[in-house]
């Protein structure tokens, strides 16, 4: 699912200025070094803890991120700094989400959402709602996911973020598609495309085009789906976005599968999987393993299909998406029993 972030402008007399600048520049190792070098008194501040949490998150150290964010939250709360508390809750939620602790993530995001709403912070409201939508989607609660994505999309619209709107509509389209409501999915993906075009965001544009192709293939219109996903694949490569490319390859694999080209479908899913593994994106990896399992089943290669479904289940489990993992295990068991 798509998500978005923001950064803050450092002040000149800020002792954490160097660390903030490094975070803004995407240099997280340097940010951590800068944070390690500040005076002990500064290191005990909530602001330091929050910045450390953000840095840990970007370095993939999710448990440390969560611990630092919770420390920051308590510090801000003691100071009565509601804005800081909100940012820390959101970051703690993000850490929990990455660790697959969906219940904790949900609580953190919900508290952050309530604070953002109280402060009238439209951008954070939008981000928290989007994150809560992702949690609900992973938990298989589609109505709730759709509700949060709608709140996210409306809030992004209010703060003038076309990119945020595009992500909100894209996520909506994905949920509708998974729920089998293809017309709504197609409509939402179309809105995502229009918003991504306005935002000039190639990644979301490619993913939204791929989402429309997924709807077309589910409707049985293979020719249209192929043309749509070809465009998505081209854009994803132009903007050099591996996640969008992996997504487009997964859907192209689906197209070839429905078209009866099983060998080609498997090859495309495998290509996508390699990319997903390279960028260490477990959700994309899980979805591609699922696709691989489905196409191998169609080819009658049950043992390899079972392995793919098991791998998909493991990847979903890592994200805390229990119902998704369960359904993959069920498929593997079903195949095992049949052979």
């Amino acid at each position, binding site marked *: 699912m798509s998500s978005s972030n923001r950064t803050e402008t450092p002040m000149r007399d800020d002792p954490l200025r160097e660390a903030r600048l490094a975070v803004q520049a995407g240099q997280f190792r340097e940010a951590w070094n800068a944070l390690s070098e500040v005076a002990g008194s500064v290191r005990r501040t909530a602001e330091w803890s929050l910045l450390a949490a953000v840095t840990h998150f970007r370095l993939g150290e999710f448990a440390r991120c969560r611990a630092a964010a919770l420390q920051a939250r308590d510090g801000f709360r003691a100071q009565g700094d509601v804005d800081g508390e909100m940012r820390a809750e959101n970051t703690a939620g993000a850490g929990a989400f990455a660790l697959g602790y969906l219940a904790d993530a*949900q609580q953190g995001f*919900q508290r952050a959402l309530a604070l953002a709403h109280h402060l009238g912070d439209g951008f954070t409201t939008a981000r928290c709602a989007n994150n809560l939508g992702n949690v609900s989607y992973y938990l298989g609660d589609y109505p709730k996911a759709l509700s949060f994505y*709608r709140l996210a999309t409306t809030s992004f619209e209010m703060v003038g973020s076309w990119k945020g709107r595009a992500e909100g509509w894209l996520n909506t389209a994905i949920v509708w598609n998974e729920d*089998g409501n293809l017309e709504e999915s197609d409509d939402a993906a179309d809105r995502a495309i229009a918003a991504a075009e306005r935002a000039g965001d190639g990644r979301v544009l490619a993913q939204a085009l791929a989402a429309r192709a997924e709807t077309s*293939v589910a*409707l049985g219109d293979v020719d*249209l789906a192929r*043309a749509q996903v070809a465009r998505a694949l081209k854009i994803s490569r132009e903007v050099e976005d591996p996640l969008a490319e992996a997504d487009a390859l997964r859907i192209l694999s689906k197209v070839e599968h429905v078209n009866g080209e099983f060998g080609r479908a498997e090859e495309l899913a495998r290509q996508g999987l390699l990319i997903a593994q390279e960028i260490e994106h477990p959700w994309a990896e899980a979805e591609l393993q699922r696709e691989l399992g489905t196409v191998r089943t169609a080819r009658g290669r049950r043992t390899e299909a079972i392995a793919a479904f098991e791998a998909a289940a493991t990847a979903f489990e890592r994200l805390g998406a229990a119902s998704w993992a369960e359904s993959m295990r069920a498929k593997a068991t079903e195949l095992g029993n049949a052979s």
Partner: protein
Amino acid sequence: MTTLSLAVIELSDSFRSAWQDLAQELDVQLATLSPQQAPSGPETIAVLLAAGGEEDRALDLLATVSRPDSVPLYIVGAQTSHRFAVEAVRRGAADYFALPGDLNLLRRTLSARAEAGRQRSASAASGPALDEAFSELLGESPALAQMLEQAARVARHGAVTVLVQGETGTGKELLARALHTASPRAAGPFVAVNCAAIPGELMESELFGHERGAFTDAHASKPGLFEEAHGGTLFLDEVGHLPLRLQGKLLRALEEHRIRRVGATQSRDVDVRIITATHVNLVEAAQDGAFREDLFYRLNVITLTLPPLRDRGADVELLAEAFAAKLAERYELPTPKLSRDVRTALHAHPWPGNVRELRHAIERALLLSEPGSLDPAHFTPQRRARQPSGTASIPFPATLDQVMAAAARAALAQHDGNKSAAARQLGISRARLARLLELVED
């Protein structure tokens, strides 16, 4: 009223007290900036480079002062030399004022800027021009033009409830959004929701929000649609699907402008314009007891009916051309011209899915025809087997489980795999439907 500001960069102390007096007279905020600082915050009417005694330095700084192109920079100094004024303007200043002699001239100039700023704000607050708001609703047919004329009259009244009627795909949400954009509420949120797509058991919490602990799953409080739309417009599509017990609550919210979250003890004020839409006949629904008559009359203050595409004559060609041009750009293809065959095909088809169906047909034909052309044969797809696969027969003799499973499967197929809609049709929960479908797989 929107706040305006006057930015001053002080290179010297001369005339310092004049800036505050000027700001007060003009009813604008005074913002003192350093030479490196760009104006921010409220709309800036002008930047004054206050250079009394430092005129040469002001000339050197001119090129480095950052400000939006639309904000003029004036140098204010003590030199009365005409040559200096010419040089200042030559280097990029909008004008030069020598104080105290030019004080009235400066006052008039700034006053005009402030007035223009206020007019811009007022214009933005009252919404954009009607033409712009309704520009997405393309068409020149009398049927559409008549409806748009009525819509334009309604749009300016930000509190009037509007009921939009029309077949599926006619653009009901587009019209609702245009009404919002052209209304004094344009700066507020536009929240659109399809009542048919929300499970009945969640509808109340969706519309009115809930407090923490209101029900098992309510771990935190959440605002509902009314609160989301506060200050703006709430568009309730397929309002006919609203459960009867909630219709009363909606009516109260409309009449009292107050809502109460599920589980809350206090009501909250809400300022929301409601636009509803439906493709069903609400009069009949009211007669059948499926829709509250009093709510119908409350929603039906103004009714706008979008004509179906088949009644819009040549609009079908106009729309097809517009879609072809836009989509060709999206897919980086040459824009096709509509051939005689295409035009004939466009008029021959009844377009039951209306504008949405037309748009899909054009997209499909554009992508599958030779670049730069549209082949009407590609307007509709030759569909392959769909995912998920369709229904299967019931064995005989069948167990009750098998019969229920077959009903679940049939409903799912009828609703294109939409589990929520299938569950609604069968009068069971999604979870129950899922269990029945598992029986199928067993």
